[in-house]
């Protein structure tokens, strides 16, 4: 018996933006990971480290500069436009700015029914009925069907986004900072909703966030990014208990914990600014801020190596091994 094909497999993904004359921003370089059915993978890192670029590259909006994006065994970067349009509904994304993600001129009910309209062949009454059912399923009062997005709160708009995405029965749901623009109390509601729909629909979720505390509660596995590169991938529990990459340790150390002793001073990043991705540092990209960097780190770039069961880290001197 061979293992079933992973839902999503990314190989040597590279995203380069042209920023004016001869200035190229390497947003993502050589990223590879895979996701299996029903898994929730957290993608964490500072702002501008390339998390959203990976998400957009997976969605082919726009396609990556190079590399492969295999979705249920089909390479999205190679398939023709018609096939891509057929596949797209199975890849859905929840955007951070929930208000901008909804057409202000359309009633929210119509927005939720839109996937069925684009797919065609479903009569209007049936579409609207399904939309109302989906509204109840995501905790929206179906009476809001005729409202416009600007009449709704941020949390409600986020629920509308979930409802719309779930209408297509997606094989992969990408959540790009789904709760960062919400109040803390609403964040919890939306995360509970995410957990509920994940179980009910058996969703595979790529969860992008810069909030380590949220990721810890939501994800099965975590991938940490720094300046366009993956530094570490590990099961959530192992990662938080004992990080292998110094950057992961710095991130975890920065989570405020009530009652816990003050963060360990040796695990703070140097106060230096985030280096520019136009001109990334030599060797290991983190060495300019790394608390444990040595001479070798500035010269040779570490590759992702296995450092334990199901975990990999790109560091010459991982904090834990085996």
């Amino acid at each position, binding site marked *: 018996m061979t293992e079933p094909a992973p839902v999503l497999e990314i190989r040597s993904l590279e995203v380069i933006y042209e920023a004016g004359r001869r200035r190229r921003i390497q947003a993502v370089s050589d990223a590879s990971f895979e996701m299996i059915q029903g898994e929730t993978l957290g993608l964490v890192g500072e702002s501008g480290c390339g998390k959203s670029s990976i998400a957009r590259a997976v*969605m082919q*909006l726009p396609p990556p500069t190079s590399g492969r994006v295999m979705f249920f065994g089909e390479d999205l970067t190679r398939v023709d436009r018609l096939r891509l*349009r*057929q596949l*797209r*509904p199975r*890849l*859905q*994304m929840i*955007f951070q*700015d929930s*208000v*901008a*993600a*909804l*057409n*202000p*001129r*359309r009633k929210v009910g119509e927005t939720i029914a*839109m*996937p069925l309209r*684009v*797919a065609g062949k479903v009569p209007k009454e049936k579409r609207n009925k399904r939309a109302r059912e989906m509204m109840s399923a995501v905790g929206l*009062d179906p*009476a*809001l069907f005729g*409202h416009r997005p*600007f*009449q*709704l*709160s*941020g*949390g*409600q708009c986020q629920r509308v*986004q979930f409802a*719309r995405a779930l209408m*297509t029965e997606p094989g992969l749901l990408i959540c790009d900072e789904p709760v960062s623009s*919400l*109040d803390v*109390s*609403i964040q919890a*509601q939306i995360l509970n909703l995410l957990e509920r729909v994940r179980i009910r629909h058996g969703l595979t979720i790529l969860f992008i966030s810069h909030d380590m505390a949220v990721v810890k509660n939501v994800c099965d596995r975590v991938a940490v990014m720094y300046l366009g590169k993956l530094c570490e991938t590990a099961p959530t529990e192992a990662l938080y208990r004992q990080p292998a990459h110094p950057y992961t340790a710095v991130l975890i150390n920065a989570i405020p914990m009530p009652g816990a002793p003050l963060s360990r001073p040796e695990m703070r990043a140097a106060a230096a600014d985030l280096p520019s991705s136009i001109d990334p540092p030599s060797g290991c990209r983190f060495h300019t801020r790394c608390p444990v960097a040595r001479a070798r780190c500035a010269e040779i770039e570490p590759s992702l190596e296995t450092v334990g069961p199901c975990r990999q880290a790109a560091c010459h001197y991982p904090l834990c091994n085996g």
Partner: protein
Amino acid sequence: MNPPSEIPPAAGRKSFSEALGESFWLSAIWLVCVIFFAVTADLWPLAEYDHMNWESPAAPPGTEIHAEIPGGGRPVEMKKVSLLGTDTMGRDILARLIFGARTSLAIGLVTPCIGMVIGGLLGMMAGFYRGRTEAVIVAVMDVILAFPGLVFLLAITFILGPGLDHIILALGLLTIPAFTRVARANTLRCARLEFVQSARMLGQSDIGILVQEILPNVIWPMIVYALLVVSYMIVAEGALSFLGLGVPAPTPSWGAMIAEGKEVLDKAPHVSLIPAMVMFLTVLSFNIMGDCLRRAVHPKEEQL
């Protein structure tokens, strides 16, 4: 920006007609009257608009004048009260006003439609596809904008000859760049928003996105702008009449009527002032409607 909890918003929102306000409806009533009379002009017992009566030129409103009512082969002489007086050639002003409304409204209403359709299409394409398409469209529009409009109108009249249709065509072409800009700016604004990307994620085609996602967000600013152009075009027709580039006589138009009266402005000001008043009210009404619409259809999206 978020309310503290997810309470459904208050149901008691102002209805659309309330949001428009009284001045909108007053303007609408005036315009409906003008359009109604323009359309049904033939059905009213009006004097002929091109019948000259040299016995009573520039008669003030309410004057009793001799009129020849054509009928039964032999003209019947009778006295008739001219409600708004006559112009410098003794033609009935009321009749000319009502028939002139046809000309002025045709120019005012058709011209922006030409600009809106062509300019809207080009502007949306430029804002949506960007790149080379946008560069070419913007460059062409800049050329049209830089070309003196009056010279263009003269050229059209010279090449195609005078006539209402040619004036409409020429003025319509001149409004395209402005509509292109309005459409492009609004397309740029919403094409970068995530809802366009989510439509793409649902497998929507480019045309589907343009028609279903972007057009509804672009059409209202365009309509509001078109209402301003309507009034601008009615005034422009008046200006052209002053230059002799207007609709050829004897077809009446408000602009031509105002222009005719300028020679007797001291002795018989009503010849110019009555059509000027009607044009003023009509233009004002279009402007008020445009303003009210803009306020009513841009309620909260502006806060985004």
